[in-house]
Protein backbone atom coordinates (compact mmCIF):
# COMPACT_ATOMS: atom_id res chain seq x y z
CA UNK A 1 0.00 0.00 0.00
CA UNK A 2 1.51 3.36 -1.07
CA UNK A 3 0.31 6.79 -0.01
CA UNK A 4 1.43 10.28 -0.97
CA UNK A 5 0.13 13.78 -0.27
CA UNK A 6 0.76 16.82 -2.43
CA UNK A 7 -0.58 20.34 -2.57
CA UNK A 8 -2.15 21.16 -5.93
CA UNK A 9 -3.44 24.71 -6.11
CA UNK A 10 -5.61 25.15 -3.03
CA UNK A 11 -6.31 21.45 -2.50
CA UNK A 12 -4.45 18.65 -0.76
CA UNK A 13 -4.38 15.58 -2.98
CA UNK A 14 -3.81 12.24 -1.25
CA UNK A 15 -3.04 9.42 -3.68
CA UNK A 16 -3.74 5.90 -2.47
CA UNK A 17 -2.33 2.91 -4.30
CA UNK A 18 -2.83 -0.79 -3.62
CA UNK A 19 -4.95 -2.65 -1.05
CA UNK A 20 -6.13 -0.70 1.99
CA UNK A 21 -6.85 -3.71 4.19
CA UNK A 22 -6.63 -4.21 7.95
CA UNK A 23 -2.89 -4.97 7.77
CA UNK A 24 -2.09 -1.80 5.78
CA UNK A 25 -4.43 0.45 7.78
CA UNK A 26 -2.13 1.58 10.68
CA UNK A 27 0.66 2.73 8.33
CA UNK A 28 -1.79 4.42 5.95
CA UNK A 29 -3.49 6.15 8.87
CA UNK A 30 -0.14 7.61 9.95
CA UNK A 31 0.68 8.69 6.41
CA UNK A 32 -2.66 10.47 6.03
CA UNK A 33 -2.43 12.19 9.45
CA UNK A 34 -1.04 15.45 7.94
CA UNK A 35 -4.46 15.84 6.25
CA UNK A 36 -6.00 16.39 9.70
CA UNK A 37 -4.15 19.70 9.79
CA UNK A 38 -5.71 20.83 6.49
CA UNK A 39 -6.39 24.43 7.68
CA UNK A 40 -9.50 24.82 5.58
CA UNK A 41 -7.97 23.46 2.37
CA UNK A 42 -10.12 21.01 0.45
CA UNK A 43 -8.95 17.41 0.41
CA UNK A 44 -9.15 14.98 -2.50
CA UNK A 45 -8.68 11.30 -1.73
CA UNK A 46 -7.54 10.01 -5.11
CA UNK A 47 -8.51 6.33 -5.18
CA UNK A 48 -7.93 5.70 -8.89
CA UNK A 49 -5.07 3.27 -8.01
CA UNK A 50 -6.81 1.78 -4.97
CA UNK A 51 -7.79 -1.87 -5.49
CA UNK A 52 -9.48 -2.73 -2.23
CA UNK A 53 -10.78 -1.06 0.94
CA UNK A 54 -11.73 -2.76 4.20
CA UNK A 55 -13.72 -1.39 7.16
CA UNK A 56 -10.41 -0.19 8.62
CA UNK A 57 -9.85 1.84 5.46
CA UNK A 58 -13.35 3.32 5.66
CA UNK A 59 -12.61 4.33 9.26
CA UNK A 60 -9.44 6.13 8.13
CA UNK A 61 -11.47 8.05 5.52
CA UNK A 62 -14.00 8.92 8.23
CA UNK A 63 -11.18 10.14 10.48
CA UNK A 64 -10.02 12.51 7.73
CA UNK A 65 -13.60 13.72 7.24
CA UNK A 66 -14.17 14.29 10.96
CA UNK A 67 -10.96 16.31 11.28
CA UNK A 68 -11.51 18.34 8.10
CA UNK A 69 -15.20 19.28 8.34
CA UNK A 70 -14.98 21.53 11.42
CA UNK A 71 -12.18 23.44 9.65
CA UNK A 72 -14.51 24.18 6.74
CA UNK A 73 -12.78 21.80 4.33
CA UNK A 74 -14.54 19.52 1.87
CA UNK A 75 -13.36 15.95 1.44
CA UNK A 76 -13.81 14.59 -2.07
CA UNK A 77 -13.30 11.00 -3.15
CA UNK A 78 -12.11 10.52 -6.68
CA UNK A 79 -11.59 7.58 -9.02
CA UNK A 80 -13.29 4.72 -7.15
CA UNK A 81 -13.39 1.52 -9.19
CA UNK A 82 -16.65 -0.43 -9.53
CA UNK A 83 -15.96 -2.72 -6.54
CA UNK A 84 -15.10 0.16 -4.26
CA UNK A 85 -18.17 2.08 -5.41
CA UNK A 86 -20.25 -0.92 -4.33
CA UNK A 87 -18.59 -0.91 -0.91
CA UNK A 88 -19.37 2.78 -0.46
CA UNK A 89 -22.95 2.25 -1.66
CA UNK A 90 -23.81 -0.80 0.46
CA UNK A 91 -22.45 0.77 3.66
CA UNK A 92 -24.28 4.03 3.03
CA UNK A 93 -20.95 5.88 2.93
CA UNK A 94 -21.97 7.61 -0.29
CA UNK A 95 -24.14 9.71 1.97
CA UNK A 96 -21.17 10.92 3.99
CA UNK A 97 -18.62 11.96 1.37
CA UNK A 98 -18.60 14.09 -1.74
CA UNK A 99 -17.49 12.44 -4.96
CA UNK A 100 -15.57 13.75 -7.96
Amino acid sequence: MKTSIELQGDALIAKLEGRLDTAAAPKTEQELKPLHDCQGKNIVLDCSQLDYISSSGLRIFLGVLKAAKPKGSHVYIQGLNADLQSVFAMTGFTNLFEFK
Partner: protein
Amino acid sequence: MTQLPPHSEALLTQFIEIRPQLLTLSDQVYDLLRQTFSEQGIELNTIEHRVKSVDSLKGKLERKGDKYKTLEDITDLIGLRIITFYTDDVDKVAAIVQQLFDIDWEHSVDKRKLHELTSFGYNSLHYICREKGGHQPFEIQMRTALQHVWSAIEHDIGYKGAVKLPPEYRRQFSRLAGMLELADDEFSRLRTTMVNYRRQVQALVKSGRLDEVPLSTDSFNSYLQLHPFDRLNKRIAAVNQAEVFPASLTSYLPILEHFGMESLGDVERFIADYQEAAYQLALSQLAITDLDILSESVGLQNLCFVYILKKGGNADELRFVFDTINGQQPSNALLADNIMNLAKNLKM
Protein backbone atom coordinates in the same frame (compact mmCIF):
# COMPACT_ATOMS: atom_id res chain seq x y z
CA MET B 1 0.23 69.13 13.31
CA THR B 2 -2.00 70.90 15.83
CA GLN B 3 -0.41 71.36 19.23
CA LEU B 4 -2.73 70.18 22.02
CA PRO B 5 -3.28 72.33 25.13
CA PRO B 6 -1.15 71.06 28.08
CA HIS B 7 -4.08 69.36 29.86
CA SER B 8 -5.11 67.47 26.72
CA GLU B 9 -1.47 66.61 26.03
CA ALA B 10 -1.21 65.12 29.55
CA LEU B 11 -4.34 63.03 28.96
CA LEU B 12 -2.94 61.76 25.67
CA THR B 13 0.39 60.81 27.31
CA GLN B 14 -1.45 58.99 30.08
CA PHE B 15 -3.56 57.15 27.46
CA ILE B 16 -0.45 55.97 25.59
CA GLU B 17 0.90 54.60 28.89
CA ILE B 18 -2.22 52.65 29.83
CA ARG B 19 -3.23 51.56 26.30
CA PRO B 20 -1.72 48.04 26.71
CA GLN B 21 -3.86 47.55 29.85
CA LEU B 22 -6.93 48.77 27.97
CA LEU B 23 -6.22 46.25 25.21
CA THR B 24 -6.12 43.46 27.81
CA LEU B 25 -9.38 44.64 29.41
CA SER B 26 -11.05 44.89 25.99
CA ASP B 27 -10.06 41.28 25.22
CA GLN B 28 -11.29 40.10 28.65
CA VAL B 29 -14.69 41.78 28.25
CA TYR B 30 -15.00 40.42 24.71
CA ASP B 31 -14.17 36.86 25.84
CA LEU B 32 -16.63 37.06 28.75
CA LEU B 33 -19.43 38.30 26.46
CA ARG B 34 -18.73 35.68 23.81
CA GLN B 35 -18.66 32.86 26.35
CA THR B 36 -21.83 34.04 28.14
CA PHE B 37 -23.87 34.43 24.92
CA SER B 38 -22.71 31.03 23.76
CA GLU B 39 -23.75 29.45 27.09
CA GLN B 40 -27.13 31.21 26.90
CA GLY B 41 -27.63 29.94 23.33
CA ILE B 42 -27.99 33.44 21.86
CA GLU B 43 -26.88 33.51 18.25
CA LEU B 44 -25.32 36.80 17.28
CA ASN B 45 -24.32 38.32 14.00
CA THR B 46 -21.03 39.47 15.50
CA ILE B 47 -19.27 41.11 18.45
CA GLU B 48 -16.74 43.79 17.57
CA HIS B 49 -14.25 45.27 20.01
CA ARG B 50 -11.55 47.90 19.78
CA VAL B 51 -9.45 50.27 21.82
CA LYS B 52 -9.34 53.83 20.52
CA SER B 53 -6.24 54.60 18.47
CA VAL B 54 -3.85 57.32 19.62
CA ASP B 55 -4.68 59.43 16.53
CA SER B 56 -8.40 59.07 17.12
CA LEU B 57 -8.11 60.22 20.74
CA LYS B 58 -5.88 63.08 19.68
CA GLY B 59 -8.57 64.21 17.24
CA LYS B 60 -11.20 64.01 19.95
CA LEU B 61 -9.06 66.03 22.38
CA GLU B 62 -8.45 68.65 19.69
CA ARG B 63 -12.20 69.04 19.20
CA LYS B 64 -13.40 68.94 22.81
CA GLY B 65 -10.42 68.32 25.12
CA ASP B 66 -11.58 70.82 27.72
CA LYS B 67 -14.70 68.71 28.35
CA TYR B 68 -12.65 65.96 30.02
CA LYS B 69 -11.06 66.36 33.45
CA THR B 70 -9.62 62.85 33.65
CA LEU B 71 -9.14 59.99 31.23
CA GLU B 72 -12.02 58.13 32.88
CA ASP B 73 -14.37 60.87 31.67
CA ILE B 74 -13.76 59.59 28.15
CA THR B 75 -16.06 56.59 28.25
CA ASP B 76 -15.40 55.13 24.81
CA LEU B 77 -11.66 54.45 25.03
CA ILE B 78 -12.75 50.82 24.92
CA GLY B 79 -15.71 50.15 22.67
CA LEU B 80 -17.60 46.95 22.01
CA ARG B 81 -20.47 46.45 19.61
CA ILE B 82 -22.86 43.53 19.86
CA ILE B 83 -24.85 43.00 16.67
CA THR B 84 -27.88 40.74 16.91
CA PHE B 85 -30.01 39.23 14.17
CA TYR B 86 -33.35 40.14 15.74
CA THR B 87 -34.75 43.17 17.59
CA ASP B 88 -36.03 40.96 20.44
CA ASP B 89 -32.47 39.85 21.09
CA VAL B 90 -31.22 43.41 21.71
CA ASP B 91 -33.20 43.51 24.99
CA LYS B 92 -32.05 40.01 25.90
CA VAL B 93 -28.42 40.96 25.25
CA ALA B 94 -28.88 44.18 27.29
CA ALA B 95 -30.26 42.22 30.24
CA ILE B 96 -27.19 39.95 30.19
CA VAL B 97 -24.84 42.93 29.95
CA GLN B 98 -26.59 44.43 33.01
CA GLN B 99 -25.93 41.24 34.95
CA LEU B 100 -22.28 41.03 33.94
CA PHE B 101 -21.21 44.64 34.53
CA ASP B 102 -21.98 47.76 36.55
CA ILE B 103 -23.90 50.17 34.33
CA ASP B 104 -23.41 53.91 34.51
CA TRP B 105 -27.07 54.79 33.89
CA GLU B 106 -26.42 58.51 33.88
CA HIS B 107 -24.30 58.24 30.75
CA SER B 108 -26.02 55.28 29.06
CA VAL B 109 -28.43 56.01 26.23
CA ASP B 110 -31.30 54.09 24.69
CA LYS B 111 -31.52 55.79 21.31
CA ARG B 112 -34.52 53.64 20.48
CA LYS B 113 -36.53 55.77 22.91
CA LEU B 114 -35.22 59.12 21.78
CA HIS B 115 -37.13 59.27 18.53
CA GLU B 116 -40.09 61.48 17.99
CA LEU B 117 -43.25 59.61 17.09
CA THR B 118 -43.03 60.87 13.53
CA SER B 119 -39.36 60.19 12.92
CA PHE B 120 -37.32 57.14 12.13
CA GLY B 121 -33.64 56.53 12.12
CA TYR B 122 -30.72 55.07 13.89
CA ASN B 123 -31.79 52.95 16.85
CA SER B 124 -29.14 51.65 19.17
CA LEU B 125 -28.65 50.97 22.83
CA HIS B 126 -25.44 52.34 24.37
CA TYR B 127 -24.33 51.32 27.85
CA ILE B 128 -21.39 52.74 29.69
CA CYS B 129 -20.11 49.85 31.77
CA ARG B 130 -17.45 48.99 34.30
CA GLU B 131 -16.32 45.61 35.50
CA LYS B 132 -17.94 44.81 38.87
CA GLY B 133 -15.94 46.94 41.31
CA GLY B 134 -13.72 48.24 38.49
CA HIS B 135 -13.04 51.86 37.61
CA GLN B 136 -12.22 51.82 33.88
CA PRO B 137 -15.33 52.61 31.84
CA PHE B 138 -16.05 51.01 28.47
CA GLU B 139 -18.91 51.46 26.05
CA ILE B 140 -21.07 48.62 24.78
CA GLN B 141 -23.35 49.33 21.81
CA MET B 142 -26.14 46.89 21.07
CA ARG B 143 -28.11 46.88 17.84
CA THR B 144 -29.54 44.64 15.15
CA ALA B 145 -27.77 43.84 11.89
CA LEU B 146 -30.19 46.08 9.98
CA GLN B 147 -29.67 48.94 12.43
CA HIS B 148 -25.96 48.43 11.91
CA VAL B 149 -26.38 48.66 8.13
CA TRP B 150 -28.43 51.81 8.60
CA SER B 151 -25.77 53.34 10.82
CA ALA B 152 -23.00 52.51 8.33
CA ILE B 153 -24.91 54.02 5.39
CA GLU B 154 -25.85 57.06 7.43
CA HIS B 155 -22.19 57.53 8.26
CA ASP B 156 -21.14 57.06 4.64
CA ILE B 157 -23.67 59.55 3.28
CA GLY B 158 -22.86 62.05 5.99
CA TYR B 159 -26.50 62.52 6.94
CA LYS B 160 -25.48 63.91 10.31
CA GLY B 161 -22.77 66.16 8.85
CA ALA B 162 -22.56 69.90 8.93
CA VAL B 163 -24.40 70.33 5.64
CA LYS B 164 -28.12 69.91 6.15
CA LEU B 165 -29.89 67.73 3.61
CA PRO B 166 -32.71 69.32 1.63
CA PRO B 167 -36.20 68.25 2.87
CA GLU B 168 -36.92 65.94 -0.10
CA TYR B 169 -33.78 63.92 0.62
CA ARG B 170 -34.48 63.86 4.36
CA ARG B 171 -37.90 62.47 3.56
CA GLN B 172 -36.32 59.77 1.36
CA PHE B 173 -33.98 58.94 4.23
CA SER B 174 -36.82 58.68 6.72
CA ARG B 175 -38.79 56.41 4.39
CA LEU B 176 -35.82 54.06 4.07
CA ALA B 177 -35.22 54.09 7.82
CA GLY B 178 -38.89 53.29 8.42
CA MET B 179 -38.65 50.40 5.97
CA LEU B 180 -35.62 48.96 7.77
CA GLU B 181 -37.36 49.29 11.13
CA LEU B 182 -40.41 47.52 9.74
CA ALA B 183 -38.21 44.78 8.22
CA ASP B 184 -36.49 44.31 11.59
CA ASP B 185 -39.86 43.83 13.32
CA GLU B 186 -41.08 41.48 10.59
CA PHE B 187 -37.98 39.28 10.87
CA SER B 188 -38.59 38.99 14.61
CA ARG B 189 -42.22 38.11 13.99
CA LEU B 190 -41.25 35.53 11.39
CA ARG B 191 -38.87 33.92 13.84
CA THR B 192 -41.61 33.68 16.48
CA THR B 193 -43.98 32.17 13.90
CA MET B 194 -41.39 29.59 12.84
CA VAL B 195 -40.61 28.65 16.45
CA ASN B 196 -44.34 28.18 17.14
CA TYR B 197 -44.74 26.07 13.99
CA ARG B 198 -41.83 23.84 14.99
CA ARG B 199 -43.31 23.39 18.48
CA GLN B 200 -46.67 22.42 16.97
CA VAL B 201 -45.02 19.90 14.64
CA GLN B 202 -42.97 18.45 17.50
CA ALA B 203 -46.11 18.10 19.63
CA LEU B 204 -47.96 16.28 16.82
CA VAL B 205 -44.99 14.01 16.18
CA LYS B 206 -44.69 13.22 19.90
CA SER B 207 -48.38 12.46 20.21
CA GLY B 208 -48.14 10.11 17.24
CA ARG B 209 -50.62 12.07 15.07
CA LEU B 210 -48.29 11.71 12.11
CA ASP B 211 -50.98 11.85 9.42
CA GLU B 212 -51.69 15.43 10.49
CA VAL B 213 -48.09 16.52 9.90
CA PRO B 214 -47.24 17.57 6.34
CA LEU B 215 -43.85 16.33 5.15
CA SER B 216 -41.36 19.22 5.19
CA THR B 217 -37.75 19.83 6.17
CA ASP B 218 -38.85 20.93 9.65
CA SER B 219 -41.28 18.09 10.26
CA PHE B 220 -38.88 15.48 8.85
CA ASN B 221 -36.11 16.73 11.17
CA SER B 222 -38.48 16.51 14.16
CA TYR B 223 -39.45 13.01 13.09
CA LEU B 224 -35.79 11.98 12.80
CA GLN B 225 -35.34 12.87 16.48
CA LEU B 226 -37.55 9.84 17.20
CA HIS B 227 -34.94 7.69 15.40
CA PRO B 228 -37.52 5.93 13.20
CA PHE B 229 -34.87 3.98 11.25
CA ASP B 230 -32.95 2.73 14.31
CA ARG B 231 -34.67 -0.64 14.51
CA LEU B 232 -33.95 -1.43 10.88
CA ASN B 233 -30.38 -0.09 11.14
CA LYS B 234 -29.71 -2.27 14.18
CA ARG B 235 -30.96 -5.37 12.35
CA ILE B 236 -28.75 -4.58 9.37
CA ALA B 237 -25.76 -3.79 11.62
CA ALA B 238 -26.19 -7.13 13.41
CA VAL B 239 -25.30 -8.93 10.15
CA ASN B 240 -21.61 -8.11 10.65
CA GLN B 241 -21.76 -6.75 14.21
CA ALA B 242 -21.16 -3.39 12.60
CA GLU B 243 -20.75 0.02 14.17
CA VAL B 244 -23.31 2.57 12.89
CA PHE B 245 -21.82 5.95 12.10
CA PRO B 246 -24.18 8.96 12.48
CA ALA B 247 -25.23 10.65 9.24
CA SER B 248 -27.66 13.33 8.17
CA LEU B 249 -30.75 11.85 6.54
CA THR B 250 -32.32 15.11 5.36
CA SER B 251 -30.90 14.59 1.87
CA TYR B 252 -33.44 11.75 1.48
CA LEU B 253 -36.38 14.15 1.82
CA PRO B 254 -36.56 14.97 -1.93
CA ILE B 255 -36.63 11.22 -2.62
CA LEU B 256 -39.55 10.64 -0.23
CA GLU B 257 -41.36 13.60 -1.81
CA HIS B 258 -40.64 12.12 -5.25
CA PHE B 259 -42.33 8.92 -4.05
CA GLY B 260 -45.45 11.02 -3.44
CA MET B 261 -45.29 11.02 0.36
CA GLU B 262 -47.17 13.98 1.77
CA SER B 263 -47.22 13.41 5.53
CA LEU B 264 -45.11 11.81 8.22
CA GLY B 265 -47.85 9.18 8.39
CA ASP B 266 -46.90 8.18 4.83
CA VAL B 267 -43.26 7.82 5.92
CA GLU B 268 -44.27 5.74 8.94
CA ARG B 269 -46.26 3.34 6.71
CA PHE B 270 -43.38 3.23 4.20
CA ILE B 271 -41.09 1.97 6.97
CA ALA B 272 -43.62 -0.55 8.28
CA ASP B 273 -44.45 -1.93 4.83
CA TYR B 274 -40.95 -2.22 3.40
CA GLN B 275 -38.57 -2.81 6.32
CA GLU B 276 -38.45 -6.60 5.95
CA ALA B 277 -37.61 -6.38 2.26
CA ALA B 278 -35.07 -3.60 2.97
CA TYR B 279 -33.39 -5.82 5.54
CA GLN B 280 -33.23 -8.73 3.07
CA LEU B 281 -31.69 -6.50 0.41
CA ALA B 282 -29.06 -5.14 2.82
CA LEU B 283 -28.37 -8.65 4.08
CA SER B 284 -27.75 -9.93 0.55
CA GLN B 285 -25.12 -7.22 0.05
CA LEU B 286 -23.38 -7.25 3.41
CA ALA B 287 -23.42 -10.92 4.41
CA ILE B 288 -20.75 -11.79 1.85
CA THR B 289 -18.42 -9.07 3.20
CA ASP B 290 -16.75 -8.40 6.53
CA LEU B 291 -17.68 -4.70 6.49
CA ASP B 292 -18.30 -3.75 10.09
CA ILE B 293 -18.93 -0.02 9.75
CA LEU B 294 -22.13 1.41 8.29
CA SER B 295 -23.62 4.83 7.85
CA GLU B 296 -26.88 5.61 9.66
CA SER B 297 -28.43 6.07 6.22
CA VAL B 298 -28.14 2.38 5.37
CA GLY B 299 -31.69 1.48 6.45
CA LEU B 300 -33.39 4.38 4.71
CA GLN B 301 -31.32 3.84 1.59
CA ASN B 302 -32.43 0.21 1.30
CA LEU B 303 -36.03 1.19 2.06
CA CYS B 304 -35.91 3.54 -0.94
CA PHE B 305 -34.49 0.81 -3.17
CA VAL B 306 -37.11 -1.79 -2.25
CA TYR B 307 -39.92 0.76 -2.56
CA ILE B 308 -38.86 1.40 -6.16
CA LEU B 309 -38.40 -2.31 -6.93
CA LYS B 310 -41.72 -3.37 -5.37
CA LYS B 311 -43.48 -0.72 -7.41
CA GLY B 312 -41.97 -2.26 -10.55
CA GLY B 313 -39.42 0.51 -10.96
CA ASN B 314 -36.36 0.18 -13.19
CA ALA B 315 -32.65 1.00 -13.00
CA ASP B 316 -33.30 4.61 -14.01
CA GLU B 317 -35.45 5.13 -10.94
CA LEU B 318 -32.84 3.51 -8.71
CA ARG B 319 -30.31 5.80 -10.30
CA PHE B 320 -32.45 8.75 -9.24
CA VAL B 321 -31.78 7.78 -5.60
CA PHE B 322 -28.01 7.67 -6.18
CA ASP B 323 -28.13 10.91 -8.20
CA THR B 324 -29.91 12.64 -5.33
CA ILE B 325 -27.55 11.33 -2.66
CA ASN B 326 -24.20 11.27 -4.50
CA GLY B 327 -24.81 14.00 -7.01
CA GLN B 328 -25.17 13.13 -10.68
CA GLN B 329 -22.29 11.02 -11.97
CA PRO B 330 -21.91 8.22 -14.54
CA SER B 331 -21.00 5.59 -11.92
CA ASN B 332 -24.50 5.88 -10.42
CA ALA B 333 -25.83 3.86 -13.40
CA LEU B 334 -23.50 1.01 -12.44
CA LEU B 335 -24.60 1.14 -8.79
CA ALA B 336 -28.24 1.07 -9.90
CA ASP B 337 -27.55 -1.95 -12.14
CA ASN B 338 -25.94 -3.76 -9.17
CA ILE B 339 -29.09 -3.26 -7.10
CA MET B 340 -31.24 -4.47 -10.03
CA ASN B 341 -29.16 -7.67 -10.24
CA LEU B 342 -29.38 -8.28 -6.50
CA ALA B 343 -33.13 -7.73 -6.64
CA LYS B 344 -33.48 -10.38 -9.36
CA ASN B 345 -31.90 -12.96 -7.07
CA LEU B 346 -34.18 -11.90 -4.23
CA LYS B 347 -37.20 -12.14 -6.54
CA MET B 348 -38.46 -8.66 -5.71
